[in-house]
């Protein structure tokens, strides 16, 4: 990302820079808006995108160099299905992490198992009525957002709070980071509207910026 945006105020996961509630709140929002973008735009999701997308303009500008423009709901739904759900015989952008991380390019591989276990250990479970897998991009991004709800609201946070949160975040966000370049490439190749290209660009650059290694 271009350095001209850098104000030099690094927000550390730990150490002297500390980890404040403002950071947690902002990170939660960033993961959440990405989660919404990569979710099927049913009426409620679409409504939330309509209401909140604009508020995240600086975020998208910073990581994609432009903001996502919402298209009419029916068009967005068709585009989402075409890209991520079912196309004529194949899915251009598989939204499941196992597909990218496990060797046989199938769903529900070992990565899903590890993600599911990690979520469970962190105290979260997937809503069973959803009929979805835990390694779906939107679910993982929501999980990452929920990590920050674990940040104690009392000020100031413990000195090692950032490290603790990073530890919780790392397995899933790390998996996301591994898959993000390929997903971004596929989105760029197949998307008909810019909104998902912006989302893909932002996802990869944002995760890179988190420096989760």
């Amino acid at each position, binding site marked *: 990302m271009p350095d001209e945006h850098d104000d030099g105020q690094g927000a550390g996961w730990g150490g002297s820079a500390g980890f404040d509630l403002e950071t947690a709140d902002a990170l939660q929002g960033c993961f959440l808006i990405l989660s919404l973008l990569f979710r099927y735009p049913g009426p409620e999701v679409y409504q939330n995108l309509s209401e909140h997308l604009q508020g995240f303009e600086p975020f998208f500008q910073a990581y994609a160099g432009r903001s996502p423009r919402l298209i009419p709901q029916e068009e967005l739904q068709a585009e989402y299905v075409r890209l991520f759900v079912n196309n004529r*015989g*194949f899915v251009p952008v598989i939204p499941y992490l196992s597909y990218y991380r496990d060797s046989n390019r199938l769903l529900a591989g070992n990565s899903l198992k590890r993600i599911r276990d990690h979520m469970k250990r962190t105290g979260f479970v997937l809503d069973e009525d959803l*009929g979805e897998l835990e390694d779906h991009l939107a679910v993982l991004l929501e*999980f990452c957002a929920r990590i920050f709800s674990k940040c104690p609201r009392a000020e100031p946070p413990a000195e090692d709070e950032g490290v603790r949160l990073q530890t919780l975040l790392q397995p899933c966000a790390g998996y996301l980071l591994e898959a993000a370049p390929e997903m971004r490439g596929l989105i760029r190749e197949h998307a008909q509207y810019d909104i998902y290209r912006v989302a893909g660009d932002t996802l990869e650059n944002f995760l890179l910026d988190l420096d989760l290694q």
Partner: protein
Amino acid sequence: MSAMKMNRRRFLGVSGGALAAATLGSGLGQLRAAEDSEDLSKFESQGNKVSIASNCAMCVNKCGIIAEVIDGRLHKINPNPEHVKSRGMLCAKGNAGAALPYSPDRLKRPLLRTGKRGEGKWKEISWEEAYRHAAEKLAELKKKYTNRSSVAFASTEGLQEEFFYYLVSGFGSLNTVRHPTLCLSTNIQGWSSVYGVYPDADLRHAEFVVMIGSDRAQSLITPDSVDFQRYKPKGQILVYLDPRFTETAAKADKWFAVKPRTDMAFTLAMTHVILQEELYDKAFVAENVHGFEQFREHIFSNEYTPEWAETKCDIPAEEIRWTARQFARHAPRSVIYPGRRSSFYAHEVYFRQTCAMLTAICGCWDVKGAVVPKSSVSLSSHTPLFPFFYDVEERVDKEAVGIVKKVVPSVVDCPLVGTGLPEDSCAFLSERDGSWITFREAVLHDEPYPVRGFFVFKQNPVQSVPNTSKTLKMMEKMDFICVIEQQMSDTAWYADLVLPHSTYLESWDPCHALSGIWPVVVARQPVIQPLFKTKTMFEISRGILKEMLTIPELWEDTDPEGLEDFKKTVMEEILDQPIQAYMEHQLSKYPGAYEQILEKGVFALSDQPQYGTTRKKGFRFKTKTGKIELFNERFQAKGLDPMPSYCEALRPRKEGEYRFLVGRTAWHTHSSTQNIPHLWEIMKENAIWINTEEARKLGIRNGDSCRVSSKAGQQTLKAYVTEKIRRDAVYYVNGWGRLSPGMSLVYKKGASEAEILEDTMDSISGSAAMHETYVTLEKA
């Protein structure tokens, strides 16, 4: 752990609080915090390994499988050594089935079309919305056309298919069209016209086997393919006829590269030899056979001699004599293999008749090593009562004879037309099967009435019915198309509503009695939980029928009493109950059988072959005379030739045309498995077989890209130049050259069969005749 190097300006300008409140705080979240009291062990991977017995569904055979499941994920599928039918075998397709539930391309939720048909614009809808939509469309169609048969229902065999028929009968259409007229209906009609039933061959104990165009080493059928591989090397003699040197030919004692469409000359001449040399089983004939004298006179007066046959089928007369004598010598342990897919030629029913008649005159019937009528384990049936509707017209393929005679080339061109065809050219269709070719012509011409609704379960007619462009035109005429499938097939792509069906590894499938020499009962239980919001046909029929019951207009043309019976016997007693209750009832005659099905995946009354039922004194065959008929009384009554007469093959229309042949491989099921990575690894595209000498004439070398053209269409694929095919024929296996740009592994790879095949059919069974198309070939 390194320090966070994030640039705060990049995201600190945003606040997540409002968004979090609006989403996570308002029930829009996908995750939930686990309750303190919640037992989370069920979500944890503990390395728990279980083995679950079920049955394969990668093709029609339903072989036994043992699924190895670890922490809820299917890791491997093994063969079931205790399965009487599949004999501990599991083929490449069966193994590859383990990847099916985990295919990223599978359908996950109901999809409703929002753009133009085929444009690819969909939205996800809930199952409740999907059921409502389907029910409302059925009501609209009924109101608009005042004829329930204006909605057609297409399906393929499978354990859930009976529940598709609950939907069909609940709506009341008579227009159903199944796969047999693309598969084995000529065989069924031919053999049944002689014996009243379609039998199996006891390949395990036969001593002499004649296989005509049944490539059992590649086109797998259990137990036949297993027995063929296992017992053939132990002394069985195999004579194999095929224009190609196949894997089966490689194992045969004698392979004859028969001229396509002339197999019947071979069987008639074999019959001539056996009759003339009096090698037939006189006692069996005297006791069991009707019309023997007329048949003998028919064979002799037409002079169906080996010398005559040699001029037709290119098999030397002496070889025909040898085969006939050996056949009689080994009788009754001699078999003319009935085969499976047999939709080769127009006039095919008569050819299949000759195979059945040969076995009959030699007494190769219902004894060890012969052709044997199938036995079955009788299941307890339910008694669903469906309403009787008034607004229903007869099936289109019974009424559309005039249309078919005008437009189907074989019916016009076949030299036998006019010498015995009845007015209703599809006289012997099975009740539900219909005739695909006739059905499509009737829909295209709106005769005798418009068909505007189309429900499809597990069929892909765009790929499987000859002449794709006609199938697409037929679909364009529909007001509404609903497809129930596992993947976005070429047919689903043109639907309005797509309903995702669970895979066979995720569903309970009811018991099914597989008849045969070794009859068994199979069923399926889920080996894993459904990954997505998919459902079975049992659940889908229940959902749509329930919605239909809330629309009064759908029930105006039935009497209230019938409707109440339907609600009670179908909805309350069957569909509203767990499917396991249905299965338990099916097996209720056999204490412990249900538990055995769950434990072993299969139930059999015996592991011994069943012979001799029809040999008992006084047995009445299911024919008009109650005897084995060499003179067919039903055909006679319908104005058909009562005995098989040789019909000259259609000739090429011009110089340089080749007869186009189709076939199968052991690792693919029709057009449904090519995009499965493990199977694609074995065969990545198809190629057209062309004889070396013909290729030289055309300047085509091995691997060259070739254009193949017929009256129906044109395809391009690579050439396989080989001595293994006759000079007058070319061949490629089906399943490639897909319409779908999304079938990532097979798109633009090889060629489609349906795009090339002309819609020619057998006039008695209504079966598509897959080997009646002539093509030209040129270097692309």
